[in-house]
């Protein structure tokens, strides 16, 4: 028991590494704030292409893109982009490589969510909007997409939570986010307590969001 406290709940070490981990948490937050909107925007574009395009080739291409990146473990994608780029002569910076890998991965998930939302909007909505004189783009923007977003709001939130958690894999390519900061601190103090502290910080950040998501889902099933 003593060794457990010594190695995991060592308050002296917690106090010592807290500021450093806090800077890691900040990196986790801004990295998430960067890749979530980019992925959601790309996913919406893919979903619109999938549901609105008259060309079968376009729709098949989008499905292939989505399935390809859903089958690919994000860590493998990140390592390919990060370590494969230089061999191609493309020197992406660390942030750019991480952002590219994340957007390729999460736009596919967002595309599936938005597709389900768009397909859930009754056809008559578009027809009615067009009959009032709106162009197709206007009808999508002001009538169809807002309803689609409302339909799948819990899934959009759930996806965002998954992405915040996923930023932890950027530690593998030495991005100084929360997990990486904890691992670095761990090797400095020869004690795994910093990793446990990082786990508490992830919980502090994400548990409230997970609870909120639960309430959103609950409200949807009751509707």
């Amino acid at each position, binding site marked *: 028991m003593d060794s457990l406290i010594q190695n995991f709940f060592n308050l002296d070490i917690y106090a010592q590494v807290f500021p450093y981990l806090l800077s890691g948490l900040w990196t986790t937050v801004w990295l998430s704030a960067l890749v979530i909107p980019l992925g959601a925007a790309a996913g919406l574009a893919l979903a619109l292409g999938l549901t609105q395009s008259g060309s079968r080739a376009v729709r098949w291409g989008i499905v292939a893109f989505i399935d390809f990146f859903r089958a690919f*473990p994000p860590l493998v994608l990140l390592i390919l982009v990060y370590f494969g780029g230089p061999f191609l002569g493309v020197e992406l910076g660390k942030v750019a490589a991480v952002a590219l890998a994340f957007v390729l991965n999460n736009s596919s998930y967002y595309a599936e969510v938005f597709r389900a939302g768009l397909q859930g909007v009754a056809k008559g909505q578009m027809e009615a909007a067009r009959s009032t004189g709106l162009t197709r783009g206007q009808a999508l923007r002001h009538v169809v997409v807002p309803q689609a977003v409302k339909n799948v709001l819990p899934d959009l939130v759930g996806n965002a939570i998954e992405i915040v958690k996923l930023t932890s*894999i950027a530690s593998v390519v030495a991005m100084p986010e929360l997990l990486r900061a904890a691992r670095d601190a761990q090797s400095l103090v020869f004690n795994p307590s910093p990793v446990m502290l990082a786990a508490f910080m992830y919980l502090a950040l994400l548990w409230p969001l997970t609870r909120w998501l639960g309430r959103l889902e609950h409200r949807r099933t009751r509707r």
Partner: protein
Amino acid sequence: MTAGDSGFLFTFFNPAVAKQYAPDIAAGMLVTVGVGLAVVVTGTLLGLALAVARALGRRVLAWPIVAFADIMRSLPPLVVLIVLYFGLPSLGLPLSAFAVTWLSLSLVLAAYAEESIWAGICAVPAGQLEAARSTGMRWWQAMRWVVLPQALSRAVPPLTNRIISITKNTALGSVVALNEILNNAQGASSHAGNPTPLMMAAFAYLVVFLPLVVFSRWLEQHWQRR
């Protein structure tokens, strides 16, 4: 063929390198599939057991189950993996990389499976259980033969997607040197000084997971119509 083309092929699709390291990648595929299957079985069964226990309606049971599910859904799987990897030895339980990956991903899957199955149980009207009980069935018989079949049927599509995204996380095992596809490919790649093994790994993951993704898409469209 221009020099540039052959340079690209030599770098990313080098036949000599590919041939040399193909056995490593194949061995990694076996480990990935093995851990993946083990995680699916234990994670789903544990999730089912937790959901049924929660359905008993005892607060002493429900509260810890909800806390477990919330925590495991809020923590990044890689963090769970690393905490267990460093934590279990200090509890006197030294575990292999295989066992740690299996255990941590099973716990994560169990949390999501519990939530999906619990949502399925909640969606079955209470009258179903009451009617079954009134025919003389015991609680667990009514659960087993009346409630669970309907609940699981609802839980299958979300659970399938979750199972795929969690089994893909077996790649995280590479961080604790589990000899699965990614770990073997990275080793081979730095040994050969050439990224061809990484491309082989990418291909190997597609071979394993693309059929699952296509299957889940099919399942989502056809499941409800049965």
